[in-house]
Protein backbone atom coordinates (compact mmCIF):
# COMPACT_ATOMS: atom_id res chain seq x y z
CA UNK A 1 0.00 0.00 0.00
CA UNK A 2 2.66 2.49 1.11
CA UNK A 3 4.91 1.35 -1.70
CA UNK A 4 2.22 1.90 -4.29
CA UNK A 5 1.56 5.41 -3.00
CA UNK A 6 5.27 6.11 -3.16
CA UNK A 7 5.37 4.98 -6.77
CA UNK A 8 2.42 7.17 -7.61
CA UNK A 9 4.09 10.13 -5.93
CA UNK A 10 7.25 9.54 -7.97
CA UNK A 11 5.21 9.52 -11.17
CA UNK A 12 3.74 12.90 -10.30
CA UNK A 13 7.19 14.23 -9.43
CA UNK A 14 8.44 13.14 -12.83
CA UNK A 15 5.47 14.82 -14.44
CA UNK A 16 6.07 18.13 -12.67
CA UNK A 17 9.75 18.00 -13.61
CA UNK A 18 8.79 17.42 -17.27
CA UNK A 19 6.43 20.40 -17.13
CA UNK A 20 9.24 22.59 -15.74
CA UNK A 21 11.52 21.45 -18.58
CA UNK A 22 8.78 22.04 -21.14
CA UNK A 23 8.27 25.60 -19.91
CA UNK A 24 12.00 26.22 -20.01
CA UNK A 25 11.99 24.85 -23.56
CA UNK A 26 9.18 27.23 -24.46
CA UNK A 27 11.14 30.18 -23.10
CA UNK A 28 14.16 29.10 -25.15
CA UNK A 29 12.00 28.72 -28.28
CA UNK A 30 10.61 32.25 -27.80
CA UNK A 31 14.15 33.53 -27.37
CA UNK A 32 15.16 31.88 -30.63
CA UNK A 33 12.13 33.33 -32.38
CA UNK A 34 13.11 36.76 -31.07
CA UNK A 35 9.79 37.22 -29.24
CA UNK A 36 11.42 38.69 -26.12
CA UNK A 37 8.30 40.20 -24.55
CA UNK A 38 6.72 36.76 -24.08
CA UNK A 39 9.73 35.18 -22.38
CA UNK A 40 9.21 36.20 -18.68
CA UNK A 41 6.01 34.22 -18.15
CA UNK A 42 7.22 30.73 -19.13
CA UNK A 43 10.56 31.39 -17.44
CA UNK A 44 8.88 32.36 -14.16
CA UNK A 45 6.40 29.49 -14.40
CA UNK A 46 9.18 26.97 -14.96
CA UNK A 47 10.59 28.12 -11.60
CA UNK A 48 7.17 27.56 -9.99
CA UNK A 49 7.03 24.08 -11.48
CA UNK A 50 10.52 23.43 -10.13
CA UNK A 51 9.17 24.37 -6.70
CA UNK A 52 6.23 22.00 -7.22
CA UNK A 53 8.66 19.21 -8.15
CA UNK A 54 10.68 19.77 -4.97
CA UNK A 55 7.49 19.97 -2.89
CA UNK A 56 6.24 16.66 -4.22
CA UNK A 57 9.63 15.12 -3.40
CA UNK A 58 9.40 15.93 0.30
CA UNK A 59 7.17 13.58 2.24
CA UNK A 60 5.84 16.17 4.67
CA UNK A 61 4.00 18.50 2.32
CA UNK A 62 0.56 17.28 1.30
CA UNK A 63 0.55 16.28 -2.38
CA UNK A 64 -2.35 18.65 -2.99
CA UNK A 65 -0.09 21.73 -2.70
CA UNK A 66 2.05 20.70 -5.65
CA UNK A 67 -1.07 19.91 -7.68
CA UNK A 68 -2.52 23.36 -7.01
CA UNK A 69 0.78 25.00 -7.98
CA UNK A 70 0.79 23.07 -11.25
CA UNK A 71 -2.83 24.03 -11.88
CA UNK A 72 -2.14 27.72 -11.26
CA UNK A 73 0.79 27.54 -13.68
CA UNK A 74 -1.39 25.94 -16.31
CA UNK A 75 -4.15 28.50 -15.82
CA UNK A 76 -1.77 31.47 -16.06
CA UNK A 77 -0.16 30.11 -19.18
CA UNK A 78 -3.50 29.47 -20.84
CA UNK A 79 -4.87 32.85 -19.78
CA UNK A 80 -1.88 34.67 -21.28
CA UNK A 81 -1.73 32.58 -24.42
CA UNK A 82 -5.46 32.25 -25.06
CA UNK A 83 -6.12 35.73 -26.48
CA UNK A 84 -3.11 35.27 -28.72
CA UNK A 85 -4.42 32.00 -30.10
CA UNK A 86 -7.85 33.50 -30.70
CA UNK A 87 -7.79 32.11 -34.22
CA UNK A 88 -8.91 28.80 -32.74
CA UNK A 89 -10.53 29.47 -29.34
CA UNK A 90 -12.48 26.20 -29.36
CA UNK A 91 -9.23 24.22 -29.10
CA UNK A 92 -7.84 26.06 -26.09
CA UNK A 93 -11.05 26.38 -24.13
CA UNK A 94 -11.02 22.63 -23.57
CA UNK A 95 -7.62 22.57 -21.90
CA UNK A 96 -8.30 24.17 -18.46
CA UNK A 97 -11.21 21.90 -17.40
CA UNK A 98 -9.29 18.79 -18.39
CA UNK A 99 -6.20 19.96 -16.53
CA UNK A 100 -8.27 20.61 -13.39
CA UNK A 101 -9.92 17.18 -13.57
CA UNK A 102 -6.55 15.49 -13.98
CA UNK A 103 -4.85 17.31 -11.10
CA UNK A 104 -7.62 17.69 -8.51
CA UNK A 105 -10.24 15.40 -7.02
CA UNK A 106 -13.66 15.54 -8.65
CA UNK A 107 -15.39 17.98 -6.26
CA UNK A 108 -12.93 20.90 -6.31
CA UNK A 109 -12.25 20.36 -10.02
CA UNK A 110 -15.94 20.62 -10.96
CA UNK A 111 -16.41 23.66 -8.76
CA UNK A 112 -13.45 25.41 -10.38
CA UNK A 113 -14.58 24.46 -13.87
CA UNK A 114 -18.09 25.80 -13.40
CA UNK A 115 -16.97 28.96 -11.58
CA UNK A 116 -14.36 29.79 -14.18
CA UNK A 117 -16.70 29.28 -17.16
CA UNK A 118 -17.36 33.02 -17.66
CA UNK A 119 -13.67 33.84 -17.27
CA UNK A 120 -12.53 31.47 -20.02
CA UNK A 121 -15.36 32.43 -22.35
CA UNK A 122 -14.75 36.17 -21.84
CA UNK A 123 -11.04 35.73 -22.48
CA UNK A 124 -11.76 33.98 -25.75
CA UNK A 125 -14.94 35.56 -27.02
CA UNK A 126 -13.68 39.16 -26.61
CA UNK A 127 -16.62 39.97 -24.41
CA UNK A 128 -19.32 38.56 -26.68
CA UNK A 129 -21.08 35.39 -25.65
CA UNK A 130 -20.45 32.68 -28.14
CA UNK A 131 -23.25 30.16 -27.76
CA UNK A 132 -21.48 27.35 -29.59
CA UNK A 133 -18.37 27.77 -27.48
CA UNK A 134 -20.38 27.82 -24.25
CA UNK A 135 -22.24 24.66 -25.18
CA UNK A 136 -19.15 22.71 -26.16
CA UNK A 137 -17.30 23.89 -23.02
CA UNK A 138 -20.13 22.78 -20.74
CA UNK A 139 -20.52 19.47 -22.55
CA UNK A 140 -16.83 18.76 -22.19
CA UNK A 141 -16.89 19.65 -18.48
CA UNK A 142 -19.88 17.43 -17.78
CA UNK A 143 -18.73 14.47 -19.86
CA UNK A 144 -15.12 14.56 -18.69
CA UNK A 145 -16.37 14.51 -15.09
CA UNK A 146 -17.95 11.13 -15.79
CA UNK A 147 -14.56 9.46 -15.80
CA UNK A 148 -13.58 10.44 -12.21
CA UNK A 149 -17.13 9.49 -11.22
CA UNK A 150 -16.63 6.05 -12.66
CA UNK A 151 -13.29 5.81 -10.86
CA UNK A 152 -14.92 6.76 -7.57
CA UNK A 153 -17.64 4.20 -8.19
CA UNK A 154 -15.04 1.51 -8.85
CA UNK A 155 -13.18 2.46 -5.66
CA UNK A 156 -16.37 2.28 -3.60
CA UNK A 157 -17.27 -0.99 -5.27
CA UNK A 158 -13.90 -2.54 -4.49
CA UNK A 159 -14.17 -1.40 -0.88
CA UNK A 160 -17.65 -2.87 -0.61
CA UNK A 161 -16.79 -6.22 -2.16
CA UNK A 162 -13.28 -6.83 -0.88
CA UNK A 163 -13.49 -9.30 2.00
CA UNK A 164 -10.07 -8.30 3.35
CA UNK A 165 -9.12 -5.31 5.47
CA UNK A 166 -7.34 -2.64 3.40
CA UNK A 167 -4.32 -2.58 5.75
CA UNK A 168 -3.60 -6.21 6.55
CA UNK A 169 -4.51 -9.73 5.54
CA UNK A 170 -7.22 -10.03 8.20
CA UNK A 171 -10.84 -10.09 7.10
CA UNK A 172 -12.49 -6.64 7.08
CA UNK A 173 -15.17 -5.48 9.53
CA UNK A 174 -18.37 -6.12 7.54
CA UNK A 175 -17.11 -9.35 6.12
CA UNK A 176 -16.07 -10.52 9.60
CA UNK A 177 -19.58 -10.03 10.99
CA UNK A 178 -21.11 -11.80 8.03
CA UNK A 179 -18.70 -14.74 8.25
CA UNK A 180 -19.12 -14.99 12.02
CA UNK A 181 -22.92 -15.01 11.67
CA UNK A 182 -22.75 -17.75 9.06
CA UNK A 183 -20.29 -19.78 11.16
CA UNK A 184 -22.58 -19.43 14.17
CA UNK A 185 -25.48 -20.67 12.05
CA UNK A 186 -23.40 -23.58 10.81
CA UNK A 187 -22.27 -24.46 14.31
CA UNK A 188 -25.82 -24.49 15.67
CA UNK A 189 -27.23 -26.44 12.70
CA UNK A 190 -24.51 -29.07 12.77
CA UNK A 191 -24.21 -28.97 16.57
CA UNK A 192 -20.56 -28.10 16.62
CA UNK A 193 -18.72 -26.04 19.22
CA UNK A 194 -17.58 -22.55 18.24
CA UNK A 195 -15.02 -20.32 19.93
CA UNK A 196 -13.95 -16.72 19.40
CA UNK A 197 -10.70 -15.30 20.75
CA UNK A 198 -10.81 -11.52 21.16
CA UNK A 199 -7.45 -9.83 20.69
CA UNK A 200 -6.53 -6.24 21.47
CA UNK A 201 -3.18 -4.72 20.52
CA UNK A 202 -2.61 -1.82 22.95
CA UNK A 203 0.61 -0.74 21.22
CA UNK A 204 -0.98 -0.15 17.83
CA UNK A 205 -2.18 3.41 18.30
CA UNK A 206 1.00 4.45 20.08
CA UNK A 207 3.13 2.87 17.35
CA UNK A 208 1.42 5.00 14.73
CA UNK A 209 1.76 8.21 16.70
CA UNK A 210 5.37 7.73 17.74
CA UNK A 211 6.98 5.73 14.97
CA UNK A 212 4.76 6.28 11.94
CA UNK A 213 2.72 3.99 9.73
CA UNK A 214 5.60 1.61 9.11
CA UNK A 215 5.76 0.51 12.75
CA UNK A 216 2.01 0.04 12.78
CA UNK A 217 2.18 -2.06 9.65
CA UNK A 218 4.90 -4.25 11.21
CA UNK A 219 2.68 -4.89 14.24
CA UNK A 220 -0.32 -5.78 12.07
CA UNK A 221 1.74 -8.05 9.86
CA UNK A 222 3.29 -9.95 12.77
CA UNK A 223 -0.12 -10.59 14.30
CA UNK A 224 -1.51 -11.86 11.00
CA UNK A 225 1.55 -14.06 10.45
CA UNK A 226 1.41 -15.49 13.96
CA UNK A 227 -2.26 -16.37 13.50
CA UNK A 228 -1.72 -17.80 10.03
CA UNK A 229 1.07 -20.07 11.34
CA UNK A 230 -0.80 -21.40 14.35
CA UNK A 231 -4.36 -21.73 13.10
CA UNK A 232 -6.10 -23.83 10.50
CA UNK A 233 -6.79 -22.24 7.15
CA UNK A 234 -10.54 -22.00 7.71
CA UNK A 235 -10.21 -20.16 11.02
CA UNK A 236 -11.07 -16.53 10.46
CA UNK A 237 -9.02 -13.62 11.75
CA UNK A 238 -11.07 -10.44 11.35
CA UNK A 239 -10.43 -6.82 12.19
CA UNK A 240 -13.24 -5.52 14.38
CA UNK A 241 -11.77 -2.10 15.22
CA UNK A 242 -8.49 -0.33 14.59
CA UNK A 243 -6.66 -2.34 17.28
CA UNK A 244 -9.29 -5.05 17.98
CA UNK A 245 -9.31 -8.42 16.29
CA UNK A 246 -11.64 -11.39 16.51
CA UNK A 247 -10.27 -14.84 15.81
CA UNK A 248 -13.10 -17.23 14.96
CA UNK A 249 -12.22 -20.88 15.64
CA UNK A 250 -14.72 -23.23 14.03
CA UNK A 251 -15.53 -26.63 15.49
CA UNK A 252 -13.24 -25.97 18.45
CA UNK A 253 -13.93 -26.92 22.06
CA UNK A 254 -13.05 -24.72 25.02
CA UNK A 255 -9.86 -26.62 25.79
CA UNK A 256 -8.78 -26.51 22.15
CA UNK A 257 -9.38 -22.76 22.02
CA UNK A 258 -7.46 -22.22 25.27
CA UNK A 259 -4.55 -24.11 23.76
CA UNK A 260 -4.63 -21.92 20.66
CA UNK A 261 -4.78 -18.80 22.85
CA UNK A 262 -1.80 -19.90 24.87
CA UNK A 263 0.29 -20.74 21.81
CA UNK A 264 -0.60 -17.45 20.19
CA UNK A 265 0.29 -15.52 23.32
CA UNK A 266 3.68 -17.22 23.53
CA UNK A 267 4.38 -16.60 19.85
CA UNK A 268 3.53 -12.90 20.11
CA UNK A 269 5.60 -12.44 23.27
CA UNK A 270 8.58 -13.94 21.54
CA UNK A 271 8.25 -11.63 18.54
CA UNK A 272 10.29 -8.47 19.11
CA UNK A 273 9.87 -5.58 16.73
CA UNK A 274 12.49 -2.93 16.08
CA UNK A 275 10.55 0.10 17.26
CA UNK A 276 7.95 -1.19 19.70
CA UNK A 277 9.79 -4.09 21.32
CA UNK A 278 7.98 -7.32 22.27
CA UNK A 279 4.36 -7.39 21.14
CA UNK A 280 1.79 -6.93 23.88
CA UNK A 281 -1.57 -8.53 23.24
CA UNK A 282 -4.63 -8.76 25.47
CA UNK A 283 -6.71 -11.81 24.70
CA UNK A 284 -9.90 -13.29 25.97
CA UNK A 285 -11.81 -16.38 24.97
CA UNK A 286 -15.54 -16.11 24.37
CA UNK A 287 -17.95 -18.93 23.47
CA UNK A 288 -21.66 -18.90 22.68
CA UNK A 289 -23.73 -20.08 25.66
CA UNK A 290 -26.28 -22.81 25.36
CA UNK A 291 -29.38 -21.50 23.53
CA UNK A 292 -27.90 -18.03 23.20
CA UNK A 293 -29.20 -16.23 20.13
CA UNK A 294 -26.79 -14.77 17.59
CA UNK A 295 -27.53 -11.07 18.35
CA UNK A 296 -27.02 -11.67 22.08
CA UNK A 297 -23.72 -13.40 21.44
CA UNK A 298 -22.60 -10.58 19.15
CA UNK A 299 -23.54 -8.02 21.82
CA UNK A 300 -21.48 -9.90 24.35
CA UNK A 301 -18.52 -9.95 21.96
CA UNK A 302 -18.78 -6.18 21.53
CA UNK A 303 -18.93 -5.63 25.30
CA UNK A 304 -15.86 -7.77 25.94
CA UNK A 305 -13.95 -6.07 23.11
CA UNK A 306 -14.70 -2.72 24.74
CA UNK A 307 -13.59 -3.90 28.17
CA UNK A 308 -10.34 -5.32 26.69
CA UNK A 309 -9.55 -1.96 25.12
CA UNK A 310 -10.37 -0.07 28.33
CA UNK A 311 -8.20 -2.20 30.64
Amino acid at each position, binding site marked *: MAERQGRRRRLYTAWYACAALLLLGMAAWLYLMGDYSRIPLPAALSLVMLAATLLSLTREAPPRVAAYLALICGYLLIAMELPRQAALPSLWVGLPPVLALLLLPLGPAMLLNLLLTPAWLALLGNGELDQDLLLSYLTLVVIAALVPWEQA*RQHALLRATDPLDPECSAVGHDSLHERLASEAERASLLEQPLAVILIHLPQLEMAEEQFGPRAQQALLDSLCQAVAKRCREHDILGREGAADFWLVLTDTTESGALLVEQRLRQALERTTLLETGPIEARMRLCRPRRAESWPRFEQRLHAITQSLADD
Partner: protein
Amino acid sequence: MQTKYKIGLLRGNLLIAALLLALLAVFTHHASEALLLWLAAGWLAVTALLLGFDHRRPATVPWQLLPALLLAALLWVNPERHVTWLWAWAVLLMLPQPRWILLLEGLLALATWGSLHALLGLEQWLLTGLLLAGLMLLGLSRALDLHARREVTLRRARLVPGLALWPGHRLAHDLALERSRSQREGVHAELLLLRTSRHLCWPLAYRLCQLTRSFEPCYRLDPRSLAVILISADAEEAATRREALWHRLDTRGPARTVTLSALASLDHERRALVRQAAELQVDGEAANG
Protein backbone atom coordinates in the same frame (compact mmCIF):
# COMPACT_ATOMS: atom_id res chain seq x y z
CA MET B 1 -26.08 4.09 2.10
CA GLN B 2 -23.35 6.46 1.04
CA THR B 3 -22.60 4.37 -2.01
CA LYS B 4 -26.22 4.42 -3.17
CA TYR B 5 -26.18 8.19 -2.90
CA LYS B 6 -23.15 8.31 -5.15
CA ILE B 7 -24.81 6.13 -7.73
CA GLY B 8 -27.77 8.52 -7.89
CA LEU B 9 -25.47 11.48 -8.52
CA LEU B 10 -23.50 9.60 -11.15
CA ARG B 11 -26.72 8.66 -12.91
CA GLY B 12 -27.80 12.32 -12.86
CA ASN B 13 -24.48 13.38 -14.32
CA LEU B 14 -24.81 10.78 -17.09
CA LEU B 15 -28.28 12.02 -17.98
CA ILE B 16 -27.20 15.68 -18.01
CA ALA B 17 -24.30 14.74 -20.28
CA ALA B 18 -26.70 12.90 -22.60
CA LEU B 19 -28.98 15.94 -22.65
CA LEU B 20 -26.12 18.31 -23.54
CA LEU B 21 -25.00 16.00 -26.35
CA ALA B 22 -28.56 15.90 -27.65
CA LEU B 23 -28.61 19.72 -27.63
CA LEU B 24 -25.37 19.76 -29.62
CA ALA B 25 -26.93 17.30 -32.05
CA VAL B 26 -29.99 19.50 -32.52
CA PHE B 27 -27.87 22.56 -33.32
CA THR B 28 -25.69 20.83 -35.87
CA HIS B 29 -26.30 20.83 -39.63
CA HIS B 30 -24.19 17.87 -40.74
CA ALA B 31 -26.16 14.65 -40.94
CA SER B 32 -23.26 12.34 -40.06
CA GLU B 33 -22.22 14.56 -37.16
CA ALA B 34 -25.75 14.65 -35.77
CA LEU B 35 -25.90 10.88 -36.06
CA LEU B 36 -22.69 10.49 -34.06
CA LEU B 37 -23.87 12.91 -31.39
CA TRP B 38 -27.23 11.16 -31.06
CA LEU B 39 -25.40 7.86 -30.80
CA ALA B 40 -23.21 9.22 -28.01
CA ALA B 41 -26.21 10.69 -26.19
CA GLY B 42 -28.05 7.39 -26.51
CA TRP B 43 -25.03 5.49 -25.24
CA LEU B 44 -24.80 7.68 -22.15
CA ALA B 45 -28.53 7.42 -21.47
CA VAL B 46 -28.49 3.63 -21.77
CA THR B 47 -25.43 3.48 -19.52
CA ALA B 48 -27.30 5.57 -16.95
CA LEU B 49 -30.21 3.14 -17.03
CA LEU B 50 -28.06 0.01 -16.83
CA LEU B 51 -25.78 1.33 -14.11
CA GLY B 52 -25.80 -0.70 -10.92
CA PHE B 53 -23.59 -1.07 -7.90
CA ASP B 54 -21.97 -4.44 -8.57
CA HIS B 55 -19.36 -6.15 -10.74
CA ARG B 56 -22.22 -7.56 -12.74
CA ARG B 57 -21.46 -5.86 -15.99
CA PRO B 58 -17.68 -6.18 -16.18
CA ALA B 59 -17.85 -3.67 -19.02
CA THR B 60 -17.96 -5.80 -22.12
CA VAL B 61 -15.44 -4.96 -24.78
CA PRO B 62 -17.71 -3.16 -27.31
CA TRP B 63 -19.06 -1.06 -24.47
CA GLN B 64 -15.59 0.09 -23.49
CA LEU B 65 -14.50 0.67 -27.07
CA LEU B 66 -17.46 2.87 -27.97
CA PRO B 67 -16.41 6.14 -26.24
CA ALA B 68 -12.96 6.04 -27.86
CA LEU B 69 -14.40 5.30 -31.30
CA LEU B 70 -17.06 8.01 -30.97
CA LEU B 71 -14.48 10.57 -29.89
CA ALA B 72 -12.19 9.72 -32.78
CA ALA B 73 -15.09 9.80 -35.26
CA LEU B 74 -16.26 13.22 -34.05
CA LEU B 75 -12.76 14.63 -34.37
CA TRP B 76 -12.46 13.25 -37.89
CA VAL B 77 -15.90 14.23 -39.17
CA ASN B 78 -15.83 17.88 -38.17
CA PRO B 79 -12.53 18.86 -36.53
CA GLU B 80 -13.28 22.55 -36.73
CA ARG B 81 -16.34 22.32 -34.53
CA HIS B 82 -15.26 19.59 -32.17
CA VAL B 83 -11.58 20.36 -31.72
CA THR B 84 -12.35 21.11 -28.03
CA TRP B 85 -12.77 17.37 -27.55
CA LEU B 86 -9.14 16.65 -28.37
CA TRP B 87 -8.24 17.06 -24.69
CA ALA B 88 -10.79 14.46 -23.66
CA TRP B 89 -8.30 11.74 -24.66
CA ALA B 90 -6.31 12.46 -21.50
CA VAL B 91 -9.37 11.90 -19.30
CA LEU B 92 -10.49 8.85 -21.23
CA LEU B 93 -7.26 7.07 -20.31
CA MET B 94 -8.27 7.25 -16.64
CA LEU B 95 -11.08 4.77 -17.10
CA PRO B 96 -10.44 1.25 -15.78
CA GLN B 97 -9.99 -0.78 -18.95
CA PRO B 98 -7.77 -3.52 -20.38
CA ARG B 99 -4.30 -2.64 -21.55
CA TRP B 100 -4.92 -3.12 -25.27
CA ILE B 101 -7.77 -0.61 -25.20
CA LEU B 102 -5.41 1.89 -23.59
CA LEU B 103 -2.96 1.26 -26.42
CA LEU B 104 -5.70 1.67 -29.01
CA GLU B 105 -6.81 4.92 -27.41
CA GLY B 106 -3.23 6.17 -27.52
CA LEU B 107 -3.01 5.36 -31.23
CA LEU B 108 -6.38 6.96 -31.97
CA ALA B 109 -5.32 10.08 -30.08
CA LEU B 110 -2.13 10.21 -32.15
CA ALA B 111 -4.09 9.79 -35.37
CA THR B 112 -6.66 12.49 -34.54
CA TRP B 113 -3.93 14.87 -33.45
CA GLY B 114 -2.08 14.15 -36.69
CA SER B 115 -5.12 14.99 -38.77
CA LEU B 116 -5.37 18.40 -37.12
CA HIS B 117 -2.09 19.54 -38.70
CA ALA B 118 -3.73 21.55 -41.47
CA LEU B 119 -6.18 23.22 -39.11
CA LEU B 120 -3.72 24.35 -36.45
CA GLY B 121 -0.58 25.47 -38.22
CA LEU B 122 2.85 24.10 -37.31
CA GLU B 123 3.60 25.97 -34.08
CA GLN B 124 0.21 25.41 -32.48
CA TRP B 125 0.11 21.83 -33.74
CA LEU B 126 3.42 20.95 -32.09
CA LEU B 127 2.49 22.72 -28.86
CA THR B 128 -0.86 20.91 -28.78
CA GLY B 129 0.85 17.57 -29.32
CA LEU B 130 3.32 18.15 -26.49
CA LEU B 131 0.60 19.27 -24.10
CA LEU B 132 -1.68 16.40 -25.03
CA ALA B 133 1.12 13.88 -24.51
CA GLY B 134 1.85 15.35 -21.08
CA LEU B 135 -1.81 15.31 -20.07
CA MET B 136 -2.24 11.75 -21.29
CA LEU B 137 0.70 10.64 -19.17
CA LEU B 138 -0.89 12.38 -16.20
CA GLY B 139 -4.20 10.63 -16.88
CA LEU B 140 -2.42 7.31 -17.18
CA SER B 141 -0.62 7.79 -13.86
CA ARG B 142 -3.97 8.53 -12.19
CA ALA B 143 -5.36 5.31 -13.64
CA LEU B 144 -2.44 3.17 -12.46
CA ASP B 145 -3.37 3.30 -8.80
CA LEU B 146 -6.89 2.04 -9.31
CA HIS B 147 -5.71 -0.44 -11.92
CA ALA B 148 -3.27 -2.16 -9.55
CA ARG B 149 -5.85 -2.33 -6.79
CA ARG B 150 -8.47 -3.73 -9.12
CA GLU B 151 -6.18 -6.48 -10.39
CA VAL B 152 -5.47 -7.70 -6.88
CA THR B 153 -8.92 -7.26 -5.42
CA LEU B 154 -11.07 -8.60 -8.23
CA ARG B 155 -9.55 -12.05 -7.75
CA ARG B 156 -10.95 -12.33 -4.25
CA ALA B 157 -13.85 -9.86 -4.19
CA ARG B 158 -17.47 -10.90 -4.24
CA LEU B 159 -19.39 -10.07 -7.40
CA VAL B 160 -22.24 -8.11 -5.80
CA PRO B 161 -21.88 -6.19 -2.51
CA GLY B 162 -23.60 -8.05 0.29
CA LEU B 163 -24.23 -11.22 -1.71
CA ALA B 164 -22.24 -14.41 -1.10
CA LEU B 165 -21.53 -14.81 -4.81
CA TRP B 166 -17.86 -15.27 -5.60
CA PRO B 167 -15.79 -15.35 -8.78
CA GLY B 168 -15.27 -18.83 -10.23
CA HIS B 169 -11.50 -19.00 -9.85
CA ARG B 170 -11.88 -19.11 -6.06
CA LEU B 171 -13.80 -22.36 -6.27
CA ALA B 172 -10.86 -24.76 -6.63
CA HIS B 173 -9.16 -23.36 -3.52
CA ASP B 174 -12.38 -23.28 -1.48
CA LEU B 175 -13.21 -26.82 -2.54
CA ALA B 176 -9.93 -28.15 -1.20
CA LEU B 177 -10.45 -26.22 2.03
CA GLU B 178 -14.02 -27.41 2.49
CA ARG B 179 -13.12 -31.00 1.65
CA SER B 180 -10.58 -31.31 4.44
CA ARG B 181 -12.82 -29.39 6.85
CA SER B 182 -15.92 -31.49 6.22
CA GLN B 183 -13.89 -34.69 6.52
CA ARG B 184 -12.60 -33.65 9.90
CA GLU B 185 -15.96 -32.45 11.13
CA GLY B 186 -17.78 -35.49 9.76
CA VAL B 187 -20.39 -33.57 7.79
CA HIS B 188 -21.69 -34.20 4.30
CA ALA B 189 -20.52 -31.66 1.71
CA GLU B 190 -21.35 -31.75 -1.97
CA LEU B 191 -20.80 -29.59 -5.01
CA LEU B 192 -23.82 -28.59 -7.07
CA LEU B 193 -23.16 -27.33 -10.58
CA LEU B 194 -25.90 -25.54 -12.53
CA ARG B 195 -26.02 -24.45 -16.14
CA THR B 196 -28.56 -22.17 -17.72
CA SER B 197 -28.89 -19.70 -20.54
CA ARG B 198 -26.94 -16.46 -20.51
CA HIS B 199 -29.76 -14.07 -19.64
CA LEU B 200 -31.22 -16.33 -16.93
CA CYS B 201 -27.91 -16.81 -15.17
CA TRP B 202 -27.92 -13.67 -13.00
CA PRO B 203 -31.50 -14.08 -11.71
CA LEU B 204 -30.67 -17.72 -10.99
CA ALA B 205 -27.56 -16.68 -9.08
CA TYR B 206 -29.61 -14.31 -6.89
CA ARG B 207 -32.15 -17.07 -6.22
CA LEU B 208 -29.41 -19.55 -5.46
CA CYS B 209 -27.83 -17.22 -2.90
CA GLN B 210 -31.20 -16.66 -1.24
CA LEU B 211 -32.15 -20.33 -1.08
CA THR B 212 -28.89 -21.67 0.31
CA ARG B 213 -27.62 -21.29 3.85
CA SER B 214 -25.35 -18.38 4.64
CA PHE B 215 -22.28 -20.62 5.07
CA GLU B 216 -22.74 -22.22 1.67
CA PRO B 217 -20.79 -20.09 -0.82
CA CYS B 218 -22.04 -19.66 -4.40
CA TYR B 219 -19.76 -19.17 -7.40
CA ARG B 220 -20.22 -17.86 -10.90
CA LEU B 221 -18.00 -20.09 -13.04
CA ASP B 222 -18.69 -18.46 -16.40
CA PRO B 223 -21.55 -16.47 -17.97
CA ARG B 224 -23.69 -19.62 -18.10
CA SER B 225 -22.80 -21.78 -15.12
CA LEU B 226 -22.97 -21.50 -11.35
CA ALA B 227 -21.71 -23.63 -8.50
CA VAL B 228 -22.53 -23.95 -4.83
CA ILE B 229 -21.05 -26.05 -2.03
CA LEU B 230 -23.92 -27.60 -0.04
CA ILE B 231 -23.21 -28.65 3.53
CA SER B 232 -25.56 -30.92 5.45
CA ALA B 233 -25.34 -33.09 8.55
CA ASP B 234 -25.53 -36.39 6.63
CA ALA B 235 -26.27 -37.88 3.22
CA GLU B 236 -30.03 -38.22 3.82
CA GLU B 237 -30.49 -34.61 4.79
CA ALA B 238 -28.35 -33.66 1.82
CA ALA B 239 -30.66 -35.61 -0.52
CA THR B 240 -33.86 -33.99 0.78
CA ARG B 241 -32.32 -30.52 0.76
CA ARG B 242 -31.01 -31.03 -2.75
CA GLU B 243 -34.45 -32.10 -4.00
CA ALA B 244 -36.13 -29.14 -2.33
CA LEU B 245 -33.54 -26.72 -3.66
CA TRP B 246 -33.85 -28.11 -7.17
CA HIS B 247 -37.64 -27.65 -7.14
CA ARG B 248 -37.55 -24.17 -5.67
CA LEU B 249 -34.84 -22.99 -8.05
CA ASP B 250 -37.25 -23.74 -10.88
CA THR B 251 -34.60 -24.01 -13.59
CA ARG B 252 -34.58 -26.36 -16.53
CA GLY B 253 -30.90 -26.36 -17.47
CA PRO B 254 -28.60 -29.28 -16.74
CA ALA B 255 -27.32 -29.65 -13.19
CA ARG B 256 -25.20 -32.23 -11.39
CA THR B 257 -24.03 -32.85 -7.89
CA VAL B 258 -21.06 -34.77 -6.61
CA THR B 259 -19.96 -35.29 -3.01
CA LEU B 260 -16.68 -33.58 -2.23
CA SER B 261 -15.05 -36.83 -1.14
CA ALA B 262 -15.82 -38.38 -4.54
CA LEU B 263 -14.85 -35.33 -6.57
CA ALA B 264 -11.84 -36.16 -8.71
CA SER B 265 -11.50 -33.13 -10.95
CA LEU B 266 -13.51 -29.95 -11.20
CA ASP B 267 -12.72 -29.52 -14.88
CA HIS B 268 -13.98 -33.02 -15.60
CA GLU B 269 -17.27 -32.26 -13.85
CA ARG B 270 -17.68 -29.00 -15.71
CA ARG B 271 -17.13 -30.72 -19.05
CA ALA B 272 -19.63 -33.41 -18.08
CA LEU B 273 -22.14 -30.70 -17.16
CA VAL B 274 -21.97 -29.22 -20.66
CA ARG B 275 -22.59 -32.62 -22.27
CA GLN B 276 -25.31 -33.98 -20.00
CA ALA B 277 -29.09 -33.81 -20.48
CA ALA B 278 -31.20 -31.02 -18.99
CA GLU B 279 -31.96 -32.56 -15.62
CA LEU B 280 -30.42 -33.00 -12.18
CA GLN B 281 -27.83 -35.78 -12.08
CA VAL B 282 -26.67 -37.06 -8.73
CA ASP B 283 -23.18 -38.53 -8.65
CA GLY B 284 -23.46 -39.66 -12.23
CA GLU B 285 -26.86 -41.37 -11.88
CA ALA B 286 -29.87 -39.74 -13.48
CA ALA B 287 -32.58 -38.65 -11.05
CA ASN B 288 -35.96 -37.39 -12.02
CA GLY B 289 -35.89 -33.60 -12.13
